[in-house]
């Protein structure tokens, strides 16, 4: 899978890694053991060629008679032991590292989903969902998959680098220097190539992005594209991007393979140079044949660990960048602490607003000292044109946002002194967007409430007019629902209402908007809403005349502000904004 690979650089590589290590401190012992094991493992794989070299020498000595078969047998056994041990150690090491990083990713996902509950709602209203999503998924995945790889490869590369260097020095200093030179030259060559090719990868990402964007837009707008004959124009743009994409994908694919091939070349050239130089040294009698054999392997390991180290640094950077983004989210300011849990004995639903002031942004107050008292069972209709900020009062009542000054009291107790969950439990809320999740109908109605019986479900479904629908379902309440088009908007709304009703809340908050529902469904939904409001203190974002006419208080909003309050007749008599709004709503255009 291509695309979406973020190689952004972290602000501070060191700090990010300190944070990562601090975060996984629960696994510190396992982690240390794994690091030590991977060091030992790579040391062992270095000792292999050393013994192999001895073995080659012993065999070569035996060519002209007098083979020391016992020595060779001994070496064989030691070699087998070394390789077996190194294999086992590598396995244990990989196993531990995989465990640590997967468990850390699990821990992170868990912490992030808990964190999501504790940050204020304003965060969600302000930031894009995609951003949070990518933190929870892509970034944590990067951590989970790359963390063990890059820690492992850094340790292995460093051990191999130093270990093979020391062993090579022991065997022959001249060949060691040659190896070193080959590795450095190779490293510089690959770095240079990589630096120059990076541009093409960026181009490729950009073009892929453009292509995905175009395809997505054209396909989702297909109805308009075909009705307005836009396919031809789109084809032109498509061809342009497609041609570009062909060029850049060829380049990036090709250039991406260059560094792999260069690695191969460097290791092969190194191999030949070692053979030739080794042969010359052998002729001079400076080294044994076994040393050549050993160096043939070391040159590969040595140059390899150089490139391994440089790619590990790159992935350490991307891990650090991902970690940084996740930790920023985990460190985001949380909601103010809970109230002291004072609660009214029995909720009757008397709501008092006392000089409430509020603004979404500091310095931009939208509610300027609102005072009102709503008696139990009364109905408050909130009206205003689209975008007038009708949900603000709901946000404050439910403590999704906190008032700046003033107070809201329920049955005489300030909502600030209440536990948030207690407060929210007093309200049944039905919003305009009918949020459903993947699960059965039962789960969608009962939601987090336990002990809901089929009888309870039957009752609410009858109340909201869903029982016909339910009886037609193949598995009744256990039919899986998905947030797709299989349900009509009206049905979704009815399910949402059922969800709110099953808790028998003393107060309700309703958004009447049913814009995309046809009239008959709308009537059904609205009958349900009327029933829901009966006998309950209700706050209704009203769209229907009957609701408005029956309201005990109408709050008229415009541009975020409360502009008028009163009953229908009072407001009509005033002849202000409400009157204007009301008239325009039911006016008939000139024929």
């Amino acid at each position, binding site marked *: 899978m291509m695309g979406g690979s973020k190689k952004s650089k972290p602000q501070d590589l060191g700090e990010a890694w300190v944070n990562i290590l601090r975060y996984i401190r629960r696994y510190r012992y396992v982690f240390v053991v794994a690091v030590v094991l991977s060091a030992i493992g790579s040391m062992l794989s270095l000792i292999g060629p050393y013994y192999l070299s001895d073995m080659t020498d012993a065999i070569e000595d035996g*060519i002209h008679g007098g083979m020391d078969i016992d020595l060779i047998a001994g070496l064989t056994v030691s070699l*087998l032991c070394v390789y077996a041990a190194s294999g086992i150690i590598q396995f244990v090491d990989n*196993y531990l590292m995989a465990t640590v990083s997967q468990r850390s990713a699990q821990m992170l996902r868990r912490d992030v989903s808990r964190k999501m509950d504790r940050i204020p709602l304003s965060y969600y209203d302000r930031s894009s969902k995609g951003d949070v999503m990518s933190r929870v998924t892509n970034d944590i995945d990067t951590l989970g998959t790359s963390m063990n790889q890059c820690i492992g490869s850094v340790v292995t590369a460093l051990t191999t680098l130093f270990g093979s260097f020391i062993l090579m020095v022991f065997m022959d200093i001249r060949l060691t220097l040659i190896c070193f030179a080959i590795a450095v030259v190779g490293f510089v060559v690959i770095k240079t190539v990589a630096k120059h090719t990076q541009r093409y990868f960026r181009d490729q990402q950009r073009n892929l992005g453009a292509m995905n964007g175009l395809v997505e837009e054209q*396909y989702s707008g297909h*109805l308009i594209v075909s009705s307005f004959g836009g396919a031809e124009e789109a084809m032109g743009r498509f061809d342009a991007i497609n041609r570009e994409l062909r060029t850049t994908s060829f380049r990036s694919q090709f250039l991406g*393979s260059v560094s792999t091939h*260069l690695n191969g070349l460097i290791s092969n050239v190194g191999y030949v140079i070692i053979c030739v130089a080794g042969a010359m040294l052998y002729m001079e009698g400076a080294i044994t044949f076994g040393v050549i054999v050993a160096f043939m392997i070391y040159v590969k390991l040595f140059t390899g660990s150089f490139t391994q180290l440089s790619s590990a640094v790159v992935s350490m950077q991307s891990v650090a960048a991902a970690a940084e983004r996740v930790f920023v989210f985990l460190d985001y300011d949380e909601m103010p602490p809970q109230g002291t849990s004072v609660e009214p004995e029995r909720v009757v639903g008397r709501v008092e607003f006392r000089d409430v002031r509020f603004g979404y942004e500091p310095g931009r107050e939208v509610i300027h000292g609102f005072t009102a008292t709503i008696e139990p069972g009364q109905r408050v209709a909130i009206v205003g044109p689209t975008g007038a900020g009708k949900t603000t009062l709901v946000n404050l009542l439910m403590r999704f946002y906190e008032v700046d000054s003033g107070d809201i009291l329920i049955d005489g107790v300030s909502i600030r002194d209440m536990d948030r969950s207690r407060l929210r439990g007093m309200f049944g809320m039905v919003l305009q967007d009918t949020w459903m999740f993947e699960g059965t109908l039962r789960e969608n109605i009962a*939601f987090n409430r336990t002990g809901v019986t089929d009888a309870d479900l039957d009752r609410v479904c009858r109340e909201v007019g869903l029982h016909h629908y339910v009886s037609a379902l193949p598995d009744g309440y256990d039919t899986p629902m998905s947030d797709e088009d299989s349900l009509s908007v009206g049905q979704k709304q009815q399910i949402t209402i059922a969800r709110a009703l099953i808790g028998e809340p003393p107060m309700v908050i309703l958004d009447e908007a049913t814009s995309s529902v046809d009239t*008959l469904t709308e009537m059904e939904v609205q009958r349900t809403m009327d029933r829901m409001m009966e006998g309950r203190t209700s706050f209704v974002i009203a769209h229907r005349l009957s609701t408005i006419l029956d309201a005990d208080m109408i709050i008229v909003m415009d541009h975020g502000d409360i502009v008028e309050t009163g009953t229908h007749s009072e407001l009509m008599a005033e002849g202000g904004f409400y009157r204007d709004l009301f008239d325009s709503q039911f006016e008939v255009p000139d024929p």
Partner: protein
Amino acid sequence: MILKYLSRKQWALVCVMAAFVTMQVWLDLEIPGYMSEITVLLGSGGATEEIVGVGVEMVLCSLGSVVCSLCAGGVAAYVAAGFAETVRRIQFSKVQSFSPEEMGRFSTYSLITRSTNDITQVQLAVARTSQLVVKVPVMTYIALGKIATGSWEWTELTAVGIVAIIIVQSFMLFYVIPRYRRVQRYTDGMNRVVRESMTGVRVIRAFNAEAYQNAKADTANDELTDNNLFASRLLAFTRPFNGVVQNMLTVAIYWSGAVIIMGAASSESALFTFSNMIVFSSYAMYVVSSFILLAHIAMGLPRAIVSAQRIEEVIDTDLGIGDGEGAEPVRGDVHISFRGVSFTYAGGSGPVLSDVDLDIMRGETLAVIGQTGSGKTTLVNLIPRLFDATSGTVEVDGSDVRDYRLSDLRSRLGYATQKPVIFSGTVGYNIAYGSGDVPESEVLRAAGIAQLDGYLSENDGLDTEIQQKGANLSGGQKQRISIARAVCRRPEIYIFDDSFSALDFRTDIEVRRALRRETSGATTVIVSQRIGTVRDADRIVVLSEGRVAGIGTHDELMEGCGVYREMAESQIPREAGT
């Protein structure tokens, strides 16, 4: 197979690639031979110049191998990029000619994946896996040929190594790879819960359901982690295992070499065995590693094949709606007529429209009203031939719509769809979409009719940039842009499918007033659910369960159509009603 879209030239290039791969493998496998030569020279006390000479040849060989592999990689990448371009284009243009029915059959989301990720998968397979497909057999063949001259015991040892590798690799293919495939599914599951928690954040908090959502997230998280742990722990075993097999094989060959040499008759034959042993162990590594590569193919190919099949499904879809012969419109009083029209969705259980007979007069404003599922949208979708009637005919200007060329027919319509479609670009681009090169004044006129003046002056006018999917627009703004787009075409026929629903009442009225003023003479079909929106139409058609339940003016229907009256009474306020 999808490979049929490779051109003859591309096939030739594939052959070139195969030749390069073969060359590269051959050169690679020559290198141990040189090593053997060097060993012999060393053992027999050859001159340094000779060794350097062989060494230089060896370096050239290695250089040649790199050049060959670069060429092979380059050619493969070139073919793959060209192939992807071709297939992507064929698929895209095919999808563009789909009707909504075919779009629905695949789902938009799936089509997007097929046009992007699946193409990338296939491209990668052509670029990478194709090289492996050539390389593995060639390498195995040549390397086996080379070691055929070696000792029988060594061959046996190598065979044991290969069997070990095959066992472990197939174990991996059967147990690890399926797990890796499943990673995506579990990741999707995790993402779904997170997305759910975010879109429903208000509801979740209102219902104090945080713990409930967390429990779901934890389940998804645990499933994902368990699956990943299983896969990566198994991999923790297979990777070192391959290394151990290779290393032990070398040791075993050396040991048996020592035994053979000990029993050798002469020191010449001993030296020959010695150099052979070193060469053999290198070739044995090649053979073993080619079996490891085989596993890579086994990993890469199935995925690409699945992608290729998904692409082919799209390309091979038969189009349900195509151009007609071309018909000449005959101007009469009746502009659009439905004659005994019935419609059933493919795979749908019952008819959505039954026996609809309806004449829409030239210049008339006709409103269509009815409950959800009554067939309103389906009815208007038959006019631009987004769907074809199952039986009966739809005629525009006296000719069956199926006789027109699609572009001729559709260019006469201005359609504002139920869900407004907004393209990224400027507001001007969106309004002028489908109108060809229209002067700015025309675009501004259309914007004015859709009551967009205020929006334009508050922003950068027609040059206001719109984000993808109109993310920076409200629902009402999107609808108004979509209305302006229809107006800008100055069409003969307007279709507004519930295009006023997100407008507040005042804007709704103003837009309709302006439309009435500016589009007089054009035939207008309005689908709506608001009585207020339809009541001033020349005629109103009431649809009920796919049948016409009444046609007439508002007053006539209030008198004679029960369905209409019921709807109207629920909406029209007692005081303000008629």
